[in-house]
């Protein structure tokens, strides 16, 4: 346990200073969060009863700290919620199997092993889908019934555990190990999934980028870079317009990368986007987070690009790994929609120091610099989301979220009295 605490502290420190060191992307953060939670789970002592509840409690406790350390990085909260969901799903599948058959352990063991052997790199989505299939058919009916059903889950699971504990004490230890084992397996899947998300998205590039098209993007995103490069590798010839993405000018870096890989690249200022958009066939951008309503939190300036694209009926495509899917709505007070950064990115302090001399005049600052990091792009401006599971409409995002998250976990703050 002290090891875990040290790990957590280290990660908390990294999260807090992520802004200063600028080394963490949301992809890396998501991956590290998942790895950290895996070690939390693996080192968590599991009591004989309320196993799932104990795990959920432990993960929530850590998750709360992580989210508090950097509320702007939504990927952390997303991963925490997904891990919670995984625990619930695994627990549910175990209890259903236990209640369904007499010969409990061999069946579930077989299931786990076949899973492992046949599909070593099965995506988490597939695992989730498979588990859902065994439990209930993914019909609209079940989705509608999802809410009462899932609230009932912890209850049934714990009661199942209780009865288990009373009836078969020998089976308890195997079951507890089983749950932890399954959860860690699923977590490994999740980590693998995050690792491969760029490739998974990039694989779909040829379906979207056609010969001699002009693509516009703003700022820099690793997902976009790999997406474009994947299309290039498939011998598609196309041109890329890059809006530089003031004030951080990451578009410059993207231009450098693309040119290094032999792509025809044009760099434009952000303010020239509207003038250029009529020549563009498709806008492809990355996102900071995709909200439950299909809205996108994206680098500043993208709302303007989206509006320009809409005006000229240019498709506005957003690439986002599934770790960026956030089950919260943008009106949720927990979601810190924006982050105001230092004015020094816009102005040179020395040059403007005389404008900020409070010693003369009325003493109140006359110059106020606002430097927001993010824009909110409403769902109606987005044509398509490309995630690692394929292309989706903004109106379908809620459905993806239902796949990945449990309703119980939307609020991460622990209630005074935990489960049961």
């Amino acid at each position, binding site marked *: 346990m002290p090891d875990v605490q*040290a790990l957590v*502290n*280290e990660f908390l*420190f990294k999260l*807090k*200073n992520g*802004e*200063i*060191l600028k080394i963490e992307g949301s992809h890396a953060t998501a991956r590290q969060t998942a790895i950290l939670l895996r070690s939390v789970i693996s080192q968590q002592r599991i009591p004989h009863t309320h196993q799932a509840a104990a795990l959920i409690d432990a993960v929530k406790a850590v998750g709360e700290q992580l989210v508090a350390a950097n509320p702007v990085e939504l990927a952390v909260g997303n991963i925490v919620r997904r891990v919670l969901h995984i625990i619930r799903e695994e627990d549910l599948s175990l209890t259903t199997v236990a209640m369904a058959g007499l010969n409990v352990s061999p069946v579930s063991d077989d299931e786990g092993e076949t899973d492992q052997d046949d599909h070593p790199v099965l995506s988490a989505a597939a695992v989730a889908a498979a588990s859902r299939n065994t439990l209930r058919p993914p019909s609209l009916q079940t989705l509608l019934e999802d809410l009462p059903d899932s609230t009932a889950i912890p209850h049934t699971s714990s009661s199942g555990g209780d009865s288990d504990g009373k009836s078969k004490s020998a089976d308890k230890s195997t079951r507890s190990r089983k749950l932890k084992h399954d959860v860690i397996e699923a977590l490994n899947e999740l980590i693998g999934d995050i690792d491969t998300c760029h490739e998974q998205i990039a694989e779909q590039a040829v379906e979207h980028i056609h010969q001699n098209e002009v693509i516009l993007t703003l700022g820099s995103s690793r997902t976009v870079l790999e997406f474009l490069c994947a299309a290039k590798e498939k011998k598609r010839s196309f041109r890329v317009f890059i809006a530089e993405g003031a004030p951080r000018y990451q578009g410059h870096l993207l231009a450098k990368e693309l040119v290094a890989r032999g792509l025809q690249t044009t760099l434009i200022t952000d303010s020239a986007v509207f003038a250029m958009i009529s020549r563009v066939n498709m806008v492809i951008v990355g996102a900071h987070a995709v909200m439950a309503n299909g809205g996108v939190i994206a680098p500043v300036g993208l709302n303007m690009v989206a509006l320009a694209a809409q005006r000229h009926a240019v498709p506005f495509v957003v690439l986002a790994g599934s770790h960026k899917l956030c089950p919260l709505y943008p009106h949720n007070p927990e979601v810190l929609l924006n982050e*105001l*950064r*230092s*004015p*020094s*990115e816009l102005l*040179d*302090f*020395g*040059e403007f*120091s*005389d404008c*900020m*001399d*409070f*010693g*003369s*005049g*009325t*003493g*109140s*600052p006359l110059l*106020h*610099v606002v*430097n927001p990091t993010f824009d909110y792009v409403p769902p109606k401006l987005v044509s398509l989301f490309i995630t690692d599971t394929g292309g989706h409409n903004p109106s379908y995002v809620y459905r993806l979220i239902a796949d990945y998250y449990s309703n119980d976990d939307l609020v991460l703050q622990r209630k005074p009295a935990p489960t049961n």
Partner: protein
Amino acid sequence: MGAPKKAPARAVSDDPEDLASVPLQAVLLADSFATRFRPITLERPKVLLPLVNLPMIEYTLAWLESAGVEEVFLFCCAHAKQVISYLENSQWYAQPKFKVTTIESHNSVSAGDALRLIYERNVIHGDFVLISGDTLSNMSLMRALQEHKERKKKDSNAVMTMVIQRSKPSPITQQSRLGTDGLFMAIDPTTKQLLYYEENTNHLKGTLSIDKMLLVDNSSITLRNDIQDCYIDICSPEVLSLFTDNFDYQHLRRHFVKGLLVDDIMGYKIFTHEIHSSYAARVDNYRGYDTISKDIIQRWTYPLVPDVLSLGNSATNLERQGMYRAFEIGQSRSAQIGPHTVIGTNTTIGSNTKITNSVVGKNCAIGSNVLIEGSYVWDNVTIEDGCELRHAIVCDGVIMKSGSVLKPGVVLSFKVVIGQNFVVPPYSKVSLLKQPTKQDSDEELEYADNDSDTLDPATRTMDKLNGDSSLEFSEMQDHVSSELGYGGAGYIWSICEGSHEEEWRHSVAPIPPEKVAEITQVIEDDLELVSQDSNAPASSGELKPDTQINAEDDAVYFEKEVEATFLRAVNENVEVDHVILEVNSLRLSYNMQAADCAGAIFHSMMKLALDATHSSQNELLRNVHETVNTWQKLLKSYLPGKDEEIEVILKFEEICLESVRELSPLFTQILHLLYEKDIITEEAIEDWESEKKDADEADRVFVKQAEIFLKWLREAEEDDEEDDE
């Protein structure tokens, strides 16, 4: 002690692999060793004073942690107990990769003492960051540190890297936006070496004297007055031993930096690192406190801003127009909270209250119809209905009874009570403690007479100051109530401390317009004066050619002085040796060469000869003869070599052409005379001639005139040579 200390440090800097393994250390001085924040600092150390609702030291520690410092030695002196108990209750002792060690001292009175003590502890093993607890920054140390280490590798004398930032001083008051006096630096633009450091340049009235050796030794230097010293230094361990070796170094800048710059025997060098996109500043006085608070609210210090950096669970929300509000606030609907305002947790604000450009701390109760403008209200303050606060600092626990008014620049120290409807005059400082009667003449001795037990500070200090205790206390209470209105408690400190000018320069309040007008008037007057002298004040980066003007002026004065001396010598029959002595002293005071003396003396001699009565050219020549005869010894003593002799000839030419035209026909004769008297050698004359060869006709007049003489000279020489053969 010194030798074993230095040796490992040297080894470390030699081996790059070792270098990486040494954890980055920092020395944090949790004491400013200054009195600018009195009376507040009598009761609480400066580093614990809240800056936008967080103690200053939090910013410093948060920055050190984020910048990758792993071990901090926190030096506390004044109120050490308070600092330590604060740290014990904070998160800093529990950080895994960030070790905070406190070093306590009660008899250190300056930064120099602190560093000497740290040296004795022998805890610093490599390069370290030296910072004081009232500095905040968001710069990345990586580059500065790397530069420092690379320089250190090449030149072991590069002991310190000073972080600087560009910041224009106010053109009117000449003080920086942080309220500090103007700062002048000379920096080598290529190596970034600091060559000159001068504070308080506004007292110099636009002139600055720089050792001319600076110009001689460096191919180029940049002079800048738009620099702000961030007081963040990256030091090599040698710095500590330097402080120990020079036990009189007290102040980091005034003694240490200047000491190193002036004293080139040791050859230690200081370099600068200018930051551009990040922020660093030190709270030096109340104006700096105001400016830095506003910078924090304006997010220049990002991520060290209220909504990101929060202590405990008092989360703050950033709203439109730079309004920061904690989540639990009781705010009346009709209260107006203006832009750039921070409101702390559990504060209640009454109806029709207006707050703009201010910071309000935790658990404050603000009544109705209160006006708070540009003020800093700390925690647990009660402000009753109808009060007005403009540009004031109000410390913890203050009670302002209804209708009281704080004029701009007021500072209310802890637990002061302001009586009903009382108007506190501008720039007054009010404290429960009486103003120390004996003034420390030395500014360095901040809390020197203030040990740090946690007794009630009021009684303690009063004991100390007044000698006897409780009786006086009650007397004082009565006295106090009269001073701050009915029911008030506290003393208004008189403003004898420092000049009156200090007050408006360093207060939180903006400089009143009439003062600005006053200074502008003074500056304009100065400018007029200066423009008459055709000698404008040098601005940043340029060195006006006024030194040359001065040099010429000096030469004229010098010549006059020499002439006066010479004439006096002639009239009073002073011995030649004495005259030489006097001329020598003149030479030194005007910083002249021997050649200048010779020229001046020759000039005086010619004038003397001319002034004597003469009717014809021949008589004049005779006069010259006599004078030269009498004074040749004097002249000769300034002619050690050929160059000086040539100088005399050139001077002679000048005299003939300009001042004393009567002598010009006699040029050749006098030259001959000088030759005969062995005052001027033939080599000098030949050199003079060859020098003049390429000159224009006008300049060659005398060469032509002397042609016969020169020819004769050459022939004589040849004859000599032939004779020799």
